[in-house]
C-alpha cells in the first residue's frame, strides 16, 4: 500500500519529531486533529530489541564502543551526526560551522544530556539589560504556565532555590551527589561559586503509570527502554498514539519544501521517500515546521514560488540569519584525592547530579552574558579509550610513566575514577551575519539544495570561554588537582568550540513583532503565511546560557494551543 498521493487532507502536517515536533504532535493530536508527522529518519523505539543499546556491554561491539561511526560512540542512540553520507553542507571560506543532525523518530532528544533549564525573566529581555541583540516579543510570564505544564507532563528533577534568573519549577527530587561531585562542590565553594542540584528530565520518582522510574544505569544517552527519561518519541508521540490520537507517521521521509497555492498559502509539504527515492505530496490545512533550526530554514528557503520568490516566509530576508549556538569550553583534571577508590556502582543518572548556573554580574567582566558549568567524572563503564595512557599521572609523583606486565593491573585500578571534567555552556550574542543560506551549487543525494553556513565568533564569546577556563582552573586548584593539557591561548580563541559543536543552534527564523526584522510572530506563525508555524528552536531571539530543549517544549505547547484556537475560530 502506498501512502502517498492519497486524498487525505490533514488538519496539521508536522515536519520533524524531536522536542518541538513531538510536543506539537501530542497537543494537536490529543485535541482531535488529524495529524501527519513527517520524519527524515527511521522509526525508533528504545524498547525494541533490535534498536536497543541500553545495557549492552562494550564487548558486544567489535569496536568496543569507539566513535568511528557514531560521533558520541557506538552505543549512543543518535542516528546521524555532524557528517551524514549523502547529505553534505558547505561553509563560507574563513568561517566555521558544524551541523549535527539526528535522523530518527524523536530526533536529537534520544541522546541529549537532558539538562532541562527554564529561561529566566532576564533571558527574554537581554537588550534591556546590556543593549546587545534584541528582546523577545514575549516575556517569562508568557511562557511560565507552559514551563509548569511541561515539568508536570514530562518530569524534571531539581530543586527550588528562588534564584532570580533560574526560576523554580515543579521538580522531582534530585539524586544525591557522587564522590567527584562532592569534590566539585568543595572546590567551587572555596571560590564562592555556587553549586545546586542539576535539573534534568529523568524520572527519579513516578509521575504516571505509563513510564518507568529511573534505575540509575547512567545510560540516558543510549535512550531508555522503560521510558524513564525524556525523549520525544517515548514521552510525547507514543502516549499521543495510545490516547487515540489520529497520527499518521511518515518515516524516512525527507521534506523538500512546503507547497503553496495561488494565494500563497501553504497546502502541505513534498518529501522524498528515502526507500524508493521518489517524491510525494501530503496535503494539510496547517504546516508546522519542527525539523530543527537549520533544517526548517532550509525547507523555507527551498520553498520558492511565484508568490514567495525569496523562499517561504522570507520577505524580510531574515530566514537563516541570527543563527547562534551556545559557547562551549571544556577541561579536565586529575584529582589525587580521588585515587585508590573502593569500587561500587556509581553509574547514577546519565549525566551530572550537580551544576553551577551563571552566578556573576557582567559589569566587571570583559564579555557579555554568562555560562553554566557542567561537571563529569566517576567510575563509569569502561568503553573504547579506557586505559589509554593508563599511568600517565605517575609523572605527578616522580614515577616512571609507561611499562608493561601485571603491574599495569594495579595502576589501572589506582587511577580509575580519579579524573573530573568540566564543560562550560554559555550564551552568545546573535549576529545578523551569522547565517545559513542555500548553496546554489550543491544538492544532497535527494536532489535538495544544501545549506551553506557562514559563522564567526566575536570577542564576547571568546572572552567568555577564557573566563570559563579561569573558573575551571581555580576549582581544580582548590581541590589540589592537576589540570590536564595546556590552557588554550587567546590565539587558539581560548579553546572555544566551533559553532554547532554544542548542538544548541537556534535563531534562524527568529520571532518578533516587526515583519521586516523577524520571520515569525510571537506565536511562532510566519508573518508572511498564516498557516505555517515553526516550533523548533528557529524562533529563538536569543539563547540564554541554557540548553534550549525545555523552552522548545514550552513554546511548542503554547503555539499548539494557539493553532487549536485559531482553527476553531476559522482564522487559518
Amino acid at each position, binding site marked *: *500500500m*502506498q*501512502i502517498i498521493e492519497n486524498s487525505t487532507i490533514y488538519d496539521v502536517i508536522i515536519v520533524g519529531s524531536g522536542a518541538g515536533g513531538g510536543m506539537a504532535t501530542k497537543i494537536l493530536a490529543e485535541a482531535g486533529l488529524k495529524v501527519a508527522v513527517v520524519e527524515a529518519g*527511521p*522509526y525508533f*523505539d528504545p*524498547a*525494541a*530489541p533490535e*534498536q*536497543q543499546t*541500553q*545495557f*549492552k556491554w562494550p*564487548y*558486544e561491539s*567489535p569496536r568496543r*564502543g*569507539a566513535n*568511528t561511526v557514531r560521533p558520541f560512540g557506538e552505543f549512543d542512540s543518535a542516528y546521524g551526526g555532524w557528517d551524514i553520507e549523502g547529505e553534505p553542507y558547505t561553509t563560507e571560506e574563513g568561517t566555521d560551522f558544524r551541523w549535527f543532525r539526528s535522523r530518527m523518530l524523536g530526533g536529537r532528544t534520544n541522546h541529549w544530556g537532558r539538562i532541562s533549564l527554564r529561561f529566566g525573566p532576564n533571558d527574554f529581555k537581554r537588550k534591556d539589560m546590556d543593549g546587545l541583540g534584541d528582546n523577545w516579543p514575549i516575556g517569562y510570564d508568557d511562557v511560565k504556565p507552559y514551563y509548569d505544564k511541561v515539568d*508536570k507532563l514530562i*518530569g524534571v528533577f531539581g530543586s527550588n532555590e528562588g534564584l532570580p534568573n533560574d526560576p*523554580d519549577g*515543579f521538580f522531582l*527530587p534530585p539524586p*544525591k551527589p557522587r*564522590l567527584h561531585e*562532592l569534590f566539585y562542590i*568543595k572546590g567551587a565553594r572555596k571560590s564562592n561559586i555556587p553549586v545546586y542540584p542539576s535539573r534534568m528530565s529523568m524520572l527519579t*520518582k513516578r509521575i*504516571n503509570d*505509563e*513510564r518507568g522510574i529511573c*534505575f540509575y*544505569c547512567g545510560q540516558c544517552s543510549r535512550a531508555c527502554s522503560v521510558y524513564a527519561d525524556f525523549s520525544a518519541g517515548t514521552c510525547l508521540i*507514543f502516549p499521543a*498514539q495510545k490516547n487515540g490520537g489520529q497520527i*499518521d507517521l511518515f*518515516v524516512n521521509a525527507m521534506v523538500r519544501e512546503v507547497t503553496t497555492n495561488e494565494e500563497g498559502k501553504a497546502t502541505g509539504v513534498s518529501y522524498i521517500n528515502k*526507500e*524508493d527515492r521518489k517524491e510525494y505530496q501530503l496535503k494539510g490545512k496547517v504546516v508546522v515546521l519542527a525539523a530543527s533550526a537549520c533544517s526548517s530554514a532550509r525547507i523555507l528557503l527551498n520553498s520558492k514560488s511565484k508568490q514567495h520568490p525569496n523562499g517561504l516566509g522570507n520577505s524580510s530576508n531574515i530566514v537563516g540569519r541570527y543563527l547562534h549556538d551556545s559557547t562551549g569550553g571544556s577541561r579536565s583534571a586529575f584529582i589525587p*584525592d580521588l585515587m585508590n577508590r*573502593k569500587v561500587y*556502582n556509581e553509574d*547514577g543518572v546519565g549525566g551530572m547530579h550537580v551544576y553551577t548556573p551563571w552566578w556573576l554580574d557582567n559589569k566587571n567582566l570583559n564579555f557579555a552574558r554568562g555560562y553554566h558549568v557542567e561537571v563529569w567524572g566517576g*567510575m563509569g*563503564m*569502561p*568503553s*573504547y579509550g579506557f586505559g*589509554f*595512557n593508563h599511568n600517565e599521572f605517575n609523572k605527578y609523583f616522580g614515577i*616512571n610513566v*609507561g*611499562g608493561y*606486565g601485571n603491574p*599495569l*593491573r594495579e595502576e*589501572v*585500578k589506582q587511577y580509575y575514577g580519579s579524573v573530573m571534567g568540566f564543560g562550560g555552556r554559555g550564551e552568545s550574542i546573535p549576529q545578523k551575519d551569522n547565517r545559513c543560506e542555500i548553496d546554489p551549487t550543491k544538492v544532497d543525494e535527494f536532489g535538495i539544495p544544501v545549506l551553506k553556513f557562514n559563522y564567526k565568533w566575536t570577542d564576547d564569546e571568546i572572552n567568555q570561554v577564557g573566563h570559563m577556563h579561569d573558573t575551571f582552573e581555580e576549582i581544580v586548584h582548590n581541590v589540589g588537582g592537576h589540570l590536564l593539557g595546556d590552557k588554550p591561548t587567546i590565539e587558539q580563541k581560548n579553546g572555544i568550540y566551533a559553532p554547532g559543536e554544542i548542538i544548541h543552534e537556534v535563531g534562524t527564523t527568529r520571532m518578533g513583532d516587526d515583519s521586516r526584522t523577524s520571520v515569525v510572530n510571537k506565536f511562532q506563525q510566519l508573518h508572511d503565511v498564516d498557516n505555517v508555524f515553526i516550533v523548533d528552536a528557529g524562533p529563538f531571539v536569543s539563547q540564554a546560557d541554557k540548553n534550549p530543549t525545555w523552552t522548545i517544549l514550552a513554546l511548542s505547547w503554547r503555539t499548539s494551543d494557539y493553532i487549536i484556537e485559531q482553527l476553531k475560530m476559522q482564522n487559518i
Partner: protein
Amino acid sequence: MDRRKSIKSLILGGVAGGLALNGCKPENVEPTGENIASGAEAHFGRTPEEKEQIAKLNATQFLNAHEVETLTVLVDLILPANDTYGSASDAGVIDFIEFMTKDYPKFQTPIRGGFMWLDHKSNKDFGVEFKTATPEQQKLILDTIAYPDVEVPEPKRPLEVQFFSLMRNLTLTGYYTSKIGIEDLGYVGNTPNVWDGVPEDVLKQHGVAYEDEWLAKCVDQSKRNTKAEWDEKGNLLT
C-alpha cells in the same frame, strides 16, 4: 507499561504504508518479552547500514599470519595472565585490534611498521624474529620503548616508542572492555539499581561528607514509586 499496545496503536494510526516503506519492519519493533536484556541479546542496536559495514570489515583481514602471531606475543607481554585473570589474548584483544585496524585505517601503517621495527631490532640483537625470541630477549627490547619521556610531546617521540604506546593503549582498552577485564577492574554497574549516595566508609576515606541541608533536597528512595504531587508553589507533597 504495555509496549505491545503502543506499537499496535502506532500501526493502527495509519502508518501501514509508512512502516512498509521503512527499513525497520513492524516485526522488528515487536517486544519479545519483559526482560529487556535477554530480549535484545542478539543485537547491540545497530542500524541495517551499520550491520552491513561491520560485516564488510569482518569479511576482510588486515593482519597477516605472522603479524597475528607477533601481536599475540606482544599483547600478552603487555598484559599476561595472573592467578585469577586471563591474558590480553584470552580477553579477545587480537580480534579487537584486527577490527580497529580496518575500522580506523590510520592505525594500519604505524602498526604494520611497528611489527617490522620489532623484528628488525630482534634480528639485529638476537638473530631471531621477535615472536621466536625468548621472553627475556623480548623484554629487553620492550624495556627500550615502554617508558616514554613525558617531557617530549607524543608526536615527537621515536616511532618505536609511539608504536608501543599505541599497542599498550589498544591492549589495555581491549582488555578492560572485555568480560575478563571488567571483572578484574571490579566495575559493577550496567544494571538496574537504586543510587542512594556514596557509602559512608568511602566518604571518610576521601575526606568529604554530605550536608544535611543538601540531602534534604534529594530523593527519598523509599518513596520513588509514589506518584509525584505538588502544591501550587511547586513544593513536592509526596
